[in-house]
Every structure is written in C-alpha cells, then in structure tokens.
C-alpha cells in the first residue's frame, strides 16, 4: 500500500507537469508520455503507449484524461488511475480559473498572442517526432504500413470518426494475424 501511494504520488506529479504543456489538441500527450515514461523511467514500452492512446481515443470523453487513466490503472490500479486523472486536470483547471477571472486582459494581450504562435508551431515537430519514434512499435508486421496509410487517408480525406478507424484496424489486425497463423 505504501509503495502504491508512492507510485500514485509520482504519477500525479508527472501528469501535473505534462498538463502544463499539452498544447495542440491532445496528441502532444503521446510525445510527453514517451519522454517521461518510456525513455526516462522505462515504466512502459512504446507498444503499450500506443495501446493506451488508441483505446483512450476510441471511447467517449476527453482523450488525454482517458489515456492518463489507462496508464495510471496499468501502473497501480484504480488509485493510480485517479491520481493520473487528477494530475492531468489540475493545471488546466487552475490556469483557466485565472483566465476566466482576468479574461479581457488575456484575450487582447498581443504578447501572449505572439508567444502562442510560437508554441503552436512547436507542437508540429513535437508530434512529428513522436510519430517517428513510435514507428517501430506500430510496424511490427508488413501489413501495418498499409493499415497506417489507409487510416491516414480515411481520417484526412473522408473525415471519418477516429473510433471507427480504430475498430477497422482491430478487425484487420485480427483477421491478418489469424491468417498468417502466428502466436
């Protein structure tokens, strides 16, 4: 129990830090969790990170909250799941409380706007590098390239809902692994 609470504490603190810099619609969390939990702490593998991301994105609710909970639960059950959820919610909650109170000052501040242009631009290489780093975990099988390409096209050109794309990927994965008769 003592050990579990200690892990929950670390998880809360880590997600609080991650919560400070999750700009750009949620996907940036993948890059940050990779930096913190795959590379630095070696708590999960790249495959596991991909799994939590895809499950978290495919169910209702806020994606980064779901991903945080799934990771926390994996590390230490419900307590750590809730620690992760509280951690990721904490900074946006506090920050937005202040922004709501000083709303008009923030909205028209040209310096804040300029800094945000830079930050939004930085999200591009951050997510780009996360994709590059995850490629090995995603492309364990040759047919993975075809699935990734199909998924990209359906999402980008057809605006298909991501959970439908993920389900299609699951069915294809199941069928193709069955056919090749592997473990």
């Amino acid at each position, binding site marked *: 129990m003592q050990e579990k609470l200690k892990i929950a504490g670390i998880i809360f603190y880590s997600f609080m830090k991650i919560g400070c810099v999750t700009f750009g619609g949620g996907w940036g969390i993948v890059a940050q969790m990779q930096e913190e939990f795959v590379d630095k702490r070696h708590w999960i593998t790249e495959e596991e990170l991909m799994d939590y991301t895809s*499950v978290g994105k495919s169910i209702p*609710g806020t994606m980064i909250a779901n991903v945080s909970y799934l990771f926390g639960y994996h590390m230490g059950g419900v307590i750590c799941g809730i620690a992760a959820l509280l951690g990721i919610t904490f900074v946006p909650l506090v920050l937005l409380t202040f922004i709501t109170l000083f709303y008009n000052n923030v909205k028209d501040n040209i310096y*804040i706007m300029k800094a945000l*242009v*830079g930050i939004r*631009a930085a999200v591009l290489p951050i997510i780009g590098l996360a994709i590059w780093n995850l490629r090995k975990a995603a492309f364990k099988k040759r047919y993975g390239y075809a699935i*990734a390409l199909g*998924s990209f096209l359906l999402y980008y050109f057809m605006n298909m809902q991501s959970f439908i794309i993920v389900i299609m990927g699951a069915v294809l994965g199941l069928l193709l692994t069955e056919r090749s008769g592997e473990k």
Partner: protein
Amino acid sequence: MIFVELFIAFCKIGFTSFGGMSMIPLINSEMMNHGWMTHSEVLDIVAIAEMTPGPLGINCATFAGIRTAGVAGALVANLGISMPTLTICALAAVFFEKFKDSKWLKGCMMGIRPATLGLISGALVVLGESNLIVENVFYWPAAVIAIAVGILMYKFKFSIPAAIVLAGVMGLVLA
C-alpha cells in the same frame, strides 16, 4: 439546483463526444440553453482552449462553472466532464489489463497500432495546415519556429517543456 444542472450538462457533453473539436456543437447548445454563455463567449472559450494547455472539455467546464457558481461550480462541472473516464474508461482499463495477453486482443492490437499512427499523422497534417497557412498565405515565422524546434529536439535532445518555452520566446521575436 445549479450544481446538479452543471454536473448533468457536462456529463452529457462528455458521454456523447470524443473530445476536441467534436464537442463544440454540443457545448454550444448546452451553454446557450442554460443561458450560461453567449455564442460569442463559446467562440472565445474555443480560442482560449486552443491557446492554453489542456483539453477543450476541461477548459469549458471550468469557464462555465466559475461563471455560474464560482470555484465549486468549476469543480462540479469538471467532475461531470470526467465521468466517462471514471466509468467507461475505467471498465475498459480493467478489461484491457485482463485480456492483454490473449491471442485475440494481441491480434487486434497489431492492426490498431498502425491505424493509430495513421490517425496521428492525419491530425498532424491538419494541425500543420492551420498553423502554417494563415488566410491562404504561407506563414513563414511558424515554419521557421517549427523547423528550429524540430532540430533542437532531434539533434540536441531538448526536452518538450524546454522546447515549448523556447518556442514561445521565438514567437515573441518573429510573430
């Protein structure tokens, strides 16, 4: 009672959306039906959500909660928006940990992982378009910052928080 109303409204928003921009129409109608925000305030909150860290749902819950019932309102609204995570996602977590070594789930994951990578790539292109092309013109400061940050992170192993701070400074200078 206002707390119950806030909780129910944000539960609804949470359970019927998949996060991000797909929430906007729903948030819009819930906020306006209750008279919690005007339409232009909803648009403002979307802009704020874009420029601050944290997901749109949490930002919106906090904004509406504070406006209607102070900090306690914000907490209740955030609890509402977190309900899908605490129920559906919590169940999914149990299921996933239990069956992750099964042959079937492993097979599914072989397809899901590349599908997710494709999704993230698609999201990256959409994000790139909205940042690099402003009013149909290529916006070079954003491109310069993106490339500079990419080099710093890949070659010089900058951490993400460091890169974000530096990008903010570059934005002040270039934008």
